[in-house]
């Protein structure tokens, strides 16, 4: 059925051209005799406007927000949306990165480059530091995803952030599908899925007490494909490891595990060099690339449109452990 699906989706891709009705460059209604001719915005324009609206609500109603920026594609999109929301003014919040110490060097370099290019303040807090202080405990060989929550909660306490803006999307995972755009966390950073505030219209409830915190997800309604289409539309730079490159990998449990100073072959495993790209760029020890020859954003969009595996299914070892891994992590304060 894979081949059949692929063929049908390729048909879909070809049909796309025929459905475009207006010039994308103008982004504006064609002026008729009345000058007010009605035309509906494209889905990307609607999603963009919704996200800008959300960012402005956070800025206006929260006392001390921060925007989580990792150098990954979703947070790159968030930064462009923040430019659209607040320029020619400055961002009304700093950028915050929780560095696991296991990040890909290309991504860290890109993070610093982009923050400097925007002229906005970047705060980095490290999981290594939390481990050194004994606040976070990670067993050898384990990913640092869970420990990230500890460092994040510390950073929130240190700076008194009452809102953290993140790039998570509801299409990523079923726990996310049920999370609000403005997601309330108690003083322990916990998400209680059974006790969420109803979210109606675009009227977001941002009320918190000191010590409590809201996580805000302006990309809630975006899919992986929307993100890449937006990156293409906005001509955004992304770290090089999103594009196909030659890399040493090990085939393990159906995944391509990248070889690094942290991960090497086990007994009987063979290291091979393959053409791969990353769909997400998280912790080096648990983020796997997919086989790919996509060297441009346009190639990635085509691959994403025909992909038959979810972003997390393809790339995250940690979410394969249990059906409910993400839900459990979120309840412990994870993004």
């Amino acid at each position, binding site marked *: 059925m894979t081949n059949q699906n692929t063929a049908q989706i390729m048909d879909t891709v070809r049909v796309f051209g025929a459905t475009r009705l207006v010039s994308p460059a103008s982004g504006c209604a064609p002026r008729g005799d009345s000058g007010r001719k009605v035309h509906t915005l494209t889905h990307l324009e609607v999603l963009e406007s919704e996200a800008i609206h959300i960012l*402005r609500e956070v800025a206006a109603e929260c006392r001390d927000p921060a925007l989580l920026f990792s150098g990954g594609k979703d947070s790159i999109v968030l930064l462009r949306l923040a430019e659209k929301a607040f320029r020619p003014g400055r961002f009304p919040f700093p950028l915050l990165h929780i560095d696991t110490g296991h990040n890909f060097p290309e991504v860290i370099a890109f993070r610093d480059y982009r923050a400097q290019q925007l002229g906005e303040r970047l705060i980095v807090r490290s999981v290594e530091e939390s481990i050194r202080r004994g606040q976070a405990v990670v067993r050898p060989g384990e990913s640092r995803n869970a420990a990230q929550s500890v460092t994040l909660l510390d950073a929130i306490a240190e700076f008194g952030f009452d809102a953290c803006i993140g790039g998570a999307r509801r299409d990523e995972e079923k726990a996310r599908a049920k999370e609000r755009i403005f997601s309330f966390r108690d003083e322990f950073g916990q998400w209680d899925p059974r006790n969420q505030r109803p979210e109606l219209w675009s009227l977001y*409830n941002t009320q918190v007490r000191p010590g409590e915190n809201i996580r805000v997800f302006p990309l809630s309604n975006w899919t992986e494909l929307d993100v890449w289409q937006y990156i293409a539309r906005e001509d955004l730079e992304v770290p090089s490891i999103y594009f196909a490159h030659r890399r040493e990998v090990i085939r393990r449990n159906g995944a391509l595990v990248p070889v690094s100073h942290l991960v090497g072959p086990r007994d009987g495993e063979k290291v091979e060099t393959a053409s791969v790209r990353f769909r997400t760029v998280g912790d080096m020890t648990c983020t796997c690339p997919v086989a790919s020859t996509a060297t441009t*954003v346009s190639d990635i969009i085509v691959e994403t449109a025909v992909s038959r595996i979810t972003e997390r299914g393809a790339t995250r070892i940690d979410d394969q452990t249990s059906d409910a891994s993400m839900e459990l992590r979120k309840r412990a304060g994870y993004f």
Partner: protein
Amino acid sequence: MSTIERMDFAHGELLRFITCGSVDDGKSTLIGRLLHDSKSVFEDQLSAVARATERRGLPGIDLSLLTDGLQAEREQGITIDVAYRYFATPRRKFIIADTPGHEQYTRNMVTGASTASLAVILIDARKGMLIQSRRHAYIASLLGIPHLVVAVNKMDLVAYSKDVFDEIRDAFSEFAARLGLRDVTYIPISALQGDMVVERGANLPWYGGPTLLSTLETIAVDHDIHLGDFRFPVQWVIRPGPGDARDFRGYAGRIESGAVAVGDEIAVLPSATRTRIKHIVTHDGNLEQARAPQSVTLRLADEIDASRGDMIVSAQAAPRVAKEFDAILCWLGEQPLDLRRNYLLKQGTRIARATVAGIRYRVDVNTLELQSDVVALTMNDVGQAGIRVQQPLALDSYARNRATGSFIMIDEATHNTVGAGMVL
């Protein structure tokens, strides 16, 4: 044209819809079918569902498990809340608000319905129109959802009988007419067998109308917000300060309805100061005109001291400004509405202290009977109430404008969202 150009502006529009069904109406199967047949399901999701189906000792693939939720829900065999699902076809991108059918239903459906342009109401062909079908239709009309689709499901279990379908359609039409619902489409389907969902199937030759998906793909969206009067709640004032943009003062927000052009005469409410639009600014350059739901920054011809919470509106068609008004109130809080207490009320971008001055009546959402002599609204209650706010609000009736006629109420003590209101 390169591939990227063709794909970038691929989906013409975005349609948000809600699915309403009672337990066992086959709602999960229907959503699973839509996602599966429109090729929006990934292989790893499908194999997880296949494994889960096998664990339950069932044959094949149970599509209803595709929308299976959280661990907490599986343990208790319930569905907690509103979940959002996404799929796309070459014509449109869709956001489904999937709401469960247990006793908190009114609260969940009101939440999901508040952003929906269309509601799919599922009716089990074997059971016909039930009390909950009427409740679904009532809430859809209350929340001003412009389009309704009645999907008569499980047609395979009534031998695909045209008579059964016709009977349900007639019963529903009569009720819909009473509610003033004008745009209702009736479709016989079998979510389990896939008839008339994405594919037509071979079992319903007597039905000549569109499939469910084709209805979702072609129904007109967002005409109401385009045709409405210009409304622009100010979210944020952009004043960059030192630097080359020193003189810049712009009002940032989203156009909630209507359109605006440079030179238009506008009023800033509640002060009612009038001026003209000087520039429509975006990060991608200035525009001559803009329309809902675009987010833009407006610069005005005169120095006016507007701030967050104010609303910039068409000078020719301004909303009323009031501190007292009547509204339909849906109570969402676990604690009943208390007439002696203050609440926070958020409308547009304004938060004001509010009290409920009195409850005119409560609606029995199952029978639509109006009950007067009511002293409180409890969770899932719907009623008409008089609202008093400390600061004047710029208000349209909800029937005219979903964005400027809606508000939420927040409990000052718990900070929970406890009420959803629609201005009359």
